[in-house]
């Protein structure tokens, strides 16, 4: 269907107040749980502090209010959490674009049932690693990270709020120039508005107290309409200007992402010698494979005897990462999880993202966005 734009907010006062941008997303979740259209809602809740986002399954609609508010220092991934552990229930999930990309690929591979899931997309400018966030708040804001009660990313700034209500902000450009700020794969990410979900929600172009929603699928359209009819949300049409502002923000961010792609994947890309040094550290712990949301085989080629490295201390990169790349790189959604979890600090997402980009240039297939499976899986004579 053709996308539709609208502004929405929760009718429930508590949700409207506690939720981000009028609490429309929370209200939609509440509607789905109340009407028993889903068995659970998978979303993030705040753990020990603002740097701690924990995936939480909410089964009782009264608990939805606890999940309100966005967390930018929680680089989580929901894709494989759903395919491995939540495939037996009807689910609604709040998704960042990378979550939505992973889910989309898993749906195509029959690992997630698309009929049993509502994907409420959240616009995303990127996430920050929690420990990086704490370090940069100490260094650039001169604030004890423990004193931060809330954070947000707006107009190119990372903004923190302290207990006494004061705000401090620093330009993200400045943070990133010094090696802080968003994760590098987020810097490179081109999908800021998750049009691969049922709805794409966010504050870009929205009036204060309202959520801007791009309705992407029929399922999303029905959800919004029914939630409105049942009195969970109110909606109105955004102005032409609001739509234009949102488009502008998106295009600026995409342009910036492409600049970062050039930087990380071409200009500053590690030379083969550097890669050899990285591969030399590999402890073959399989963290990259196990965390990859799209790597789901029960029996893995990498553990086959014929790739065993006899008398070698680090695995041969050709038959470890090489084989992994040959299986997965074209499907890489650049979620960055492999790099995040590598105990040996190998910048894995860079090689995978670079290869997916090449594959995309060759074939037009965009992992997580294209409707069809990668052409490599095609049985056709083409």
């Amino acid at each position, binding site marked *: 269907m053709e996308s539709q734009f609208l502004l929405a907010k929760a009718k429930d006062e508590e949700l409207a107040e506690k939720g981000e941008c009028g609490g429309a997303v929370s209200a939609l979740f509440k509607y789905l749980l109340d009407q028993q259209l889903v068995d659970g809602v998978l979303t993030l809740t705040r753990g020990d502090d603002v740097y701690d986002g924990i995936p939480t399954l909410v089964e009782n609609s009264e608990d939805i209010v606890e999940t309100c508010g966005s967390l930018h220092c929680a680089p989580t991934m929901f894709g494989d959490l759903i395919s491995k*552990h939540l495939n037996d229930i009807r689910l609604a999930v709040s998704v960042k674009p990378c979550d939505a990309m992973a889910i989309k690929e898993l749906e195509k591979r029959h690992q997630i049932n698309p009929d049993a899931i509502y994907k409420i997309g959240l616009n995303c400018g990127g996430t920050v*690693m*929690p420990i990086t966030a704490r370090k940069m708040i100490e260094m650039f804001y001169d604030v004890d990270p423990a004193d931060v009660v809330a954070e947000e990313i707006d107009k190119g700034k990372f903004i923190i709020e302290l207990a006494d209500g004061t705000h401090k902000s620093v330009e993200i450009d400045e943070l990133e120039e010094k090696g802080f700020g968003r994760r590098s794969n987020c810097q490179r990410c081109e999908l800021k508005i998750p049009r691969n979900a049922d709805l794409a929600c966010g504050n870009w172009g929205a009036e204060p107290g309202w959520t801007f929603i791009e309705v992407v699928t029929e399922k999303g359209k029905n959800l919004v309409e029914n939630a409105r009819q049942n009195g969970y949300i109110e909606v109105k049409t955004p102005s032409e200007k609001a739509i234009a502002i949102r488009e502008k923000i998106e295009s600026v961010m995409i342009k910036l992402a492409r600049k970062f792609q050039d930087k990380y994947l071409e200009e500053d890309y590690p030379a083969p010698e550097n890669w050899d040094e990285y591969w030399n550290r590999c402890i073959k*712990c399989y963290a990259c494979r196990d965390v990859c949301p799209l790597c789901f085989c029960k029996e893995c080629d990498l553990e086959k005897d014929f790739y065993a490295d006899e008398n070698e*201390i*680090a695995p041969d990169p050709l038959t470890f990462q090489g084989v992994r790349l040959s299986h997965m790189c074209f499907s890489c959604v650049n979620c960055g999880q492999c790099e995040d979890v590598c105990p040996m600090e190998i910048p894995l997402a860079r090689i995978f993202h670079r290869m997916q980009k090449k594959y995309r240039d060759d074939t037009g297939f965009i992992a997580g966005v294209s409707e069809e499976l990668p052409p490599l899986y095609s049985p056709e004579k083409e």
Partner: protein
Amino acid sequence: MLKVAHTICPSCSVGCGVNLIIKDQEAVGTYPYKRHPINEGKNCKKGRDSYQILNENRLRDPLLKKGGLEQVSWEDALETTVSQLKSHKNHEIGIIASGNCTNEEYETLKKFAATLGVENIGYNAKNIPAFNFETATLDDVENSDFILIIGDVLKENPLLGRRVILAKEGGAEIITADFPDKTLTGINSDEYMQIESISAFLDNINRKVLETPEQSSTVIISGLSGEEFENVLKFFQDSHAKLLPVMEECNSRGAMNILPALNENELKDLLKKVKLLYVVGDDPASYMEESLKNIEFLITQNFFINETVLMSDVVLPGSCWAEKSGSFTNTTGETQKFNQIMLPPENARDDVTILMELAEKMGLEL
């Protein structure tokens, strides 16, 4: 029905954070805990597989030896334990723990032993002698200009190894010494020295590099025990470098702070002295089965089945780490609390509770 919850990895002494995925009261996987300052969501294979410890070979009921081991009620198990403890003199009773218990359990055990007047108590220190000085922190390692490593930390303790890698990326010089002709830490160091013996290595080492005050140096000692370990400590203790001995188990350092550290010989000596042995967490049958033959009555408190459990007269099923609250002290001396995030299986109980109940039934006030 699905819960992702924070905990501390029990697999080695680094003390990484890990999230457990718990579905319908069963641990089904792990999830990166990126907020954790020690490992930022990175875990080694052992850490990611740690959830399996909660599911494998679990003890679910108290057992009493009646010919073979038979399932009994807590009442019966505790009663037998109490009557046996009471019928032995204090000096005939021995208590040994492993390095995997919580600090709270060590404290309770210590009090229990003290109140009962039992002096034969200690933990299996895996032959690492007790020491008492401020060790290097993980941040010290990462911010070092020079690191001397004895052992293969990249392989054995990858999340400590990561700090070495970060130090190297920051320009630090890394020198590794170890026995094999090639090690993972070795191939990632600026220099690898294959050594034949620790004494020969110490004789030839140029200590000057460690005495430069403007340079921050760290010496990481891993895989050594006994005399070798002590000699290395002695050699570097008065140098300018910070030392980081790598302990064996997740709470060896905590145990060292609370209970006497017993090496294998000392454990064997203890067994010669006592007639009743109370084992918490440890598996003496795996390293001194012969000595266990002297023991008239063997009581084991553990969460899973091991050789010692199978030899025991009474088995008290305890909890695995995620099923209880407590704290571990990692190899750098940092104490980290963790909360109970799931229930112990069937009739297994919290370990401190077991000890407290036992004390109560003994008429002891802890």
